[in-house]
C-alpha cells in the first residue's frame, strides 16, 4: 500500500464523516465548522490526485473566503431564533433508507465495473497537467469557449442575485 493510497483513504474518510456530521448538527455554527473540515479533506484529496492548483484554490476560495461569508450570514440571521422544520420521523427514516440504497447501488456498480483496470496512470503527465501553468494554457487555448461561458454564467448569476435581493419596488 503506497503512501498515496493511505493518504487518499485518510482524506476521503475525513471528508465523508465531516459531511455527515455537518448535515446532522442542529446548531448551524457547528455545521459550518464541519463544512470547513470537509473542504480541507477535499483539498487533501485533490492533492493526492496531483491537482495542486485546485487544492490550493479550494482552500483559498471555499475554506477561506466563502466560509467567512457563511459564518457572517449565520451570525446575522441568528438561527437559534428560527423554528425548526417539523419533523416527520417516518419520512426521515425512509429518506435515509433511500439514500443508503443509492449509495449501495453506486458502490456496487463501481466494484463490478473495475474502471481502473487497463488505465495506466501516467504520473508525470498528470503532475504536469495539475500545474498552474498548464491549466492557464489550456484555459486560454482549448477551453477558451467554456472559459468565456463560465464568465457569462457568473455575470448572469450576479445580475440574478442583485435583482432578487436589491431591486427596489415602487
Amino acid at each position, binding site marked *: 500500500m503506497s503512501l498515496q493510497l493511505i493518504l487518499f483513504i485518510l482524506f476521503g474518510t475525513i471528508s465523508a464523516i465531516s459531511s455527515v456530521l455537518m448535515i446532522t448538527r442542529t446548531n448551524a455554527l457547528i455545521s459550518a465548522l464541519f463544512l470547513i473540515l470537509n473542504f480541507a479533506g477535499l483539498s487533501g484529496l485533490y492533492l493526492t490526485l496531483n491537482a495542486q492548483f485546485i487544492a490550493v484554490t479550494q482552500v483559498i476560495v471555499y475554506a477561506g473566503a466563502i466560509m467567512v461569508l457563511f459564518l457572517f450570514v449565520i451570525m446575522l440571521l441568528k438561527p437559534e431564533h428560527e423554528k425548526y422544520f417539523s419533523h416527520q420521523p417516518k419520512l426521515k427514516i425512509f*429518506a435515509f433508507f433511500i439514500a443508503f440504497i443509492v449509495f449501495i447501488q453506486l458502490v456496487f456498480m463501481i466494484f463490478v465495473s473495475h474502471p481502473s483496470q487497463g488505465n495506466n496512470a501516467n504520473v508525470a503527465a498528470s503532475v504536469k497537467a495539475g500545474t498552474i501553468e498548464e491549466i492557464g494554457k489550456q484555459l486560454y487555448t482549448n477551453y477558451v469557449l467554456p472559459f468565456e461561458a463560465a464568465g457569462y454564467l457568473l455575470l448572469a448569476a450576479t445580475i440574478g442575485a442583485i435583482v432578487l435581493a436589491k431591486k427596489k419596488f415602487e
Partner: protein
Amino acid sequence: MVQLIYLTTLLPLLGFLFNGLFGSKIKNEKIIGIIGSSTIGISFLIVVGAFFQTLSMPVDQRQTIVNLFTWIKVGNLDVNVSYQVDQLSLLMGLIVTGVGFIIHVYSIGYMHGDKGFGRFFAYLNLFIFAMMNLVLGSNFLLLFLGWEGVGLCSYLLIGFWYDRKFEKSTTSDAAKKAFIVNRIGDFGFLLGIFLIYLTFGSLNFNDVFARAASLNIPQYVFNFIALFLFIGAMGKSAQIPLYIWLPDAMAGPTPVSALIHAATMVTAGVYMVARCSIIYASAPAIMEFVAIIGALTAIFAASIALVQNDIKKVLAYSTVSQLGYMFLALGVGAFSAALFHVMTHAFFKALLFLGAGSVIHGMHDEQNIQNYGGLKKYMPKTYVTFLIASLAIAGIPPLSGFFSKDEILWSSYADGNIIYWLIGVVTALLTAFYMFRLVSLTFDGKERFGHDKHPHESPAVMTIPLIILAVLAAVGGFIGIPEIFSGEHGNQFDNWLEPIFQPAQAKIAMFGVHSSLEEIVLMVVTLVGVIGSIYAARYIYIKNIKPAEKLSKRFNGVYNLLLNKYYVDEIYDASVVTPIVKGSEIVLWKFADIKIIDGLINGVANLIEKISGSIRKIQTGVAQFYALIMMLGIVAALFWIILSL
C-alpha cells in the same frame, strides 16, 4: 407562366380570406365584388398564359410538375403539394377560372343588396380555390382535398339563404341532403385511394399510372379500384342512384347553380375518371358499368325534365342527364369526347342557368314556368342568349353542343353497342323537347303572370356575362370539329388531349374511330329527330296549349310518375332513410348510445376523474418530498441497470 400556376389557387384563397374576414365590415359591395372577381380573373389570365406556353412546347414535354412543398412524408408515403400542369388540367383550369370569372362578375349584379354579399363572394372564392386544387393536384391526396373542399363549398352555398324556405322544408335540409349523399360517394372514393396506395405504393398520378400500365396486377384489383373511384364520381357527378341531391341543390342562389352545380364541380367526377383513364382501361367490366349507368341516367333524368315546372328544376335534371352523357362517353372509351362535352356543357349550361337567373331576377323570384310567358319583349337580351343556349344543348349545328353530342353518339355507336346509341338519340330528342317547352312557356305565348309583376331586363353587369357565354356556347364547338369535316388535321380537341389518353386507348385497342359515311348518316338522322322534337314542343306549347293538357290527362299515370320524379325520393325515404332513422333512434340512440356507450364513457370518465383527484394529493408542495420522489425514481432506474446489464 406555368411556374406561376400556384397563384391560381393562392389568389382565390387570399380573396376568400379577405372577403371572409373583412367582408362583413366593408359595406361597399363594389370593393368586395371587384376583389372577389379580380382574383379569379387574374387566375384565368395565368391559366391562359400557361396554356399558350404549354402549347408552344413539344408534344411529349407538355407535362410540368410544379412542386410547392412536401406535405406529408412518412416512410414510403411521400406526398407533396405540387401541381401537375398538363393538357387535361389546363383544360379544366380554363373552364373553372374562365366560366368562374364570368359568373363572379354576374353575381355582382345578381346578389346586389343581399345581406350576405361578402360571405357569398368569400365562399365562391373558396370554391375556386378548392376546385383548382382538385384539377391541378398531382396526386390523389390533393385531389381528395379539393374534392372535399368543393363539397364543403357546395354545402355552404346551397344553404346560403339558410333562413329561406325551400319546397316543403328549408334550404339547410337541401344542403344537408347534398352533403350526406356526397359522403356516400366520398366513402367509396376514399376506399379507392386506399386501395391505390396499397397496390401501387404511391399516390402520385405519374407513379400510379406508370405502374398501372407496366406492373402485372390481378384483374380484380383493377376492377375494385375502378369501381370505388366510380362510386365517388357517382356522388359528385350526380349519377344514378346518387343523383337525388342535385335537383335539391337548386335551393342555392342561381349563380351557384350555374358555377358549381352545372359547369364545374359536378364535372369533377368526369375529370377524375378521365384522369384515371388507364385504370379504367384495365377494368373493362367497370367501363361497361360506367357506360350503363351513364346511359340510364341520361334518359331517366331527361324524362323527368319533361314535366317539371320549376325553371331551375328543369335545368337541374337536364344537367344530370348531360352528365349521364359524359359518363356514357367515358364508359365506351371516348375520354376526350367526354371532356369535350364537359367544356361545351359548361358554356351552355352556365348560360342557361344565368339566363334563368336573369328571368328569376326580373320576375321577382318567381320560378314556376307556368306563371311566365311572353317575356321575350321584356328581356330581349336574356331571350336571345337563352335561345342560343337552348339550340346548343339541343344539338343544332353549328352550335357547340352539336359537335360534342355528336361525337359521343358516334363513339357509342362505333363501340359496337347500338343500344347505347339508341338511348343517346332518344335522350337527345327528349332534351330538345323539354328545352323548347321551357323556352316556349317562358318567353313566348301569352303573359300568364299577374299585374303585380313588372318584368324588366337585368343590368349590364348581368347581361354582358350572358353575351360572352352565348358567344362561347355558339362557337366553342369549332375546336372539336370531327375529322370527317376538318380533313387531315383531325379533331383539334382530341389531338390536344391525345397524349393523356394514349396509354388507355392503346390498352382498350378501341375501334379506329375514323370517320366514315356512317357518321354522316347517323348525324342527319339525329338532327332530323331533334328538329322534329323542337317543332313538336313549339307546336304544343305556343300554338295550342290544349294538346299538352290532353296529353297529360291521357297519360295521367305516366305524367304523375314523371312529375313526382319516379317517386325516387319517396322510395329512398321508405327503404333507406326511415329504417335508418328509426333504427338508429331505437337501437343505436336509445339503447346502444345512451345505455352502453354513454354509460361506458361516463363510467371511464368518472373513474379517471376520481383517479385524478386522488393522485393530485401527492402534490403536497413540500420540496423535500419532491426530492424524495426523484430519489425513488433514481433508485428504480439504477436497479434496472444492475439487474439488466
